[in-house]
């Protein structure tokens, strides 16, 4: 790794100060992506500002019917949380399937969504569940947050503090794993919300996570796996690589959507 300077501030303000004082600083959350990239010498931040020392960023609680998950909460904590399991069991199961056990002990929800890897699980979950991303300066609806391949609405010095997820009893995520990396080749999250069905897809889109109107319309009128049979899922705009063509991904979107509905 290239030399870097490590900071562990205990407040959001201190974190922002540390970052703004750095030549080329980066926030560090779970580090499961960033540190691997640094090991490859493909990233060389001058400073790492670790947000895990900020107490406001940890913990899971209910705020009425809304789950509030601190940004520095690990995947394992979300998976095991009684609140998440009762308010939104689909999200708990999604978290339980990210990476592997050791990664789940380190990786955080805030880190995952700030990175917005096009094959990550959380972006699909939060988009389908109509979550709100809370930062130190504002609240951003998931629909406005995920802007494409590794791109989010976050400003450089903006910190995600928590994620607000409306309780949702009927939601599930079905992931078809890329066999080598175990990231999603196609991951589909379906949720039955007050505004109808929401379906978000990760792993497949050339521009990252996206919602699928056709599937949403079909499920809004008939929440059943068979409702998906008649939906046309186009391969246009889907990724193609050695692990799966766009056509294969299109097929998997339907298959995984049906399995998610069955599991919800």
């Amino acid at each position, binding site marked *: 790794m290239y*030399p870097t300077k*490590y900071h562990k501030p205990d407040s959001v303000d201190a974190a922002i100060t540390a970052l703004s004082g750095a030549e080329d600083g980066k926030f560090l959350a779970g*580090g499961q992506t960033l*540190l*691997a990239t640094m090991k490859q010498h493909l990233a060389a931040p001058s400073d*790492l500002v670790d947000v895990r020392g900020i107490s406001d960023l940890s913990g899971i609680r209910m705020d009425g019917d809304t789950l509030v998950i601190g940004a520095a909460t690990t995947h394992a904590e979300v998976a*095991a949380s009684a609140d998440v399991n009762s308010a939104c069991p689909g999200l708990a199961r999604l978290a339980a399937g990210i990476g592997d056990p*050791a*990664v789940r002990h*380190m990786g955080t929800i805030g880190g995952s969504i700030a990175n917005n890897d096009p094959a990550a699980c959380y972006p699909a979950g939060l988009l389908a569940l109509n979550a709100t991303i809370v930062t130190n300066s504002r609240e951003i609806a998931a629909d406005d947050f995920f802007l494409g391949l590794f791109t989010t609405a976050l400003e450089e010095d903006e910190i995600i503090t928590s994620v607000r997820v409306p309780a949702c009893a009927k939601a599930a995520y079905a992931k078809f794993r890329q066999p080598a990396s175990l990231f999603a080749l196609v991951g589909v999250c379906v949720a039955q919300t007050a505004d109808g069905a929401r379906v978000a897809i990760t792993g497949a889109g050339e521009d990252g996570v996206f919602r699928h109107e056709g599937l949403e319309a079909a499920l809004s009128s008939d929440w059943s796996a068979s409702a998906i049979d008649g939906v046309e899922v186009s391969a246009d705009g889907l990724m193609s690589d050695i692990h799966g063509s766009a056509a294969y991904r299109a097929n998997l979107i339907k298959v995984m959507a049906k399995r998610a509905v069955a599991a919800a």
Partner: protein
Amino acid sequence: MTKISMNVNGKAVSRDVPDETLLSDYLREHLRLTGTHVGCDTSQCGACVVHVNGRAVKSCSALAASLEGAEVTTIEGIAQNGELHPMQQAFTDHHGLQCGFCTPGMIMTGVDMVNRYKAEGRDLTTDAIRHELEGNICRCTGYHNIVRAVEDAAAKM
């Protein structure tokens, strides 16, 4: 350089290390605890798994500096009073290792999974063991005997 203090295998340790030092390097190069191995650089093989505050983590994917004050347990620290840990014993009883390189990570992952399943009151089936091992790669054994070893150790832990 930052002075990093931890409790490693029950002993307080403290070393001045560069900020970018990974926990795996801190253990291997600075503390010379070479039982923790590094088999990949994309955080997938799991040869470097240790326990931090009682949970399995990949030591190649954590900065030592971020673990100031942590309790760290490595493969060198799980045998107690000269007695092998049941997981260690099970690996040799079931021929769960060949070249031995992935073994420390496998054993540390095995201990962690059994602890978690026991704490949560869940049944650790062989299917569950296989899925819990998804972050650990072994090239020698074909996993058959590793799964049997974890299964056996789980019954004895």
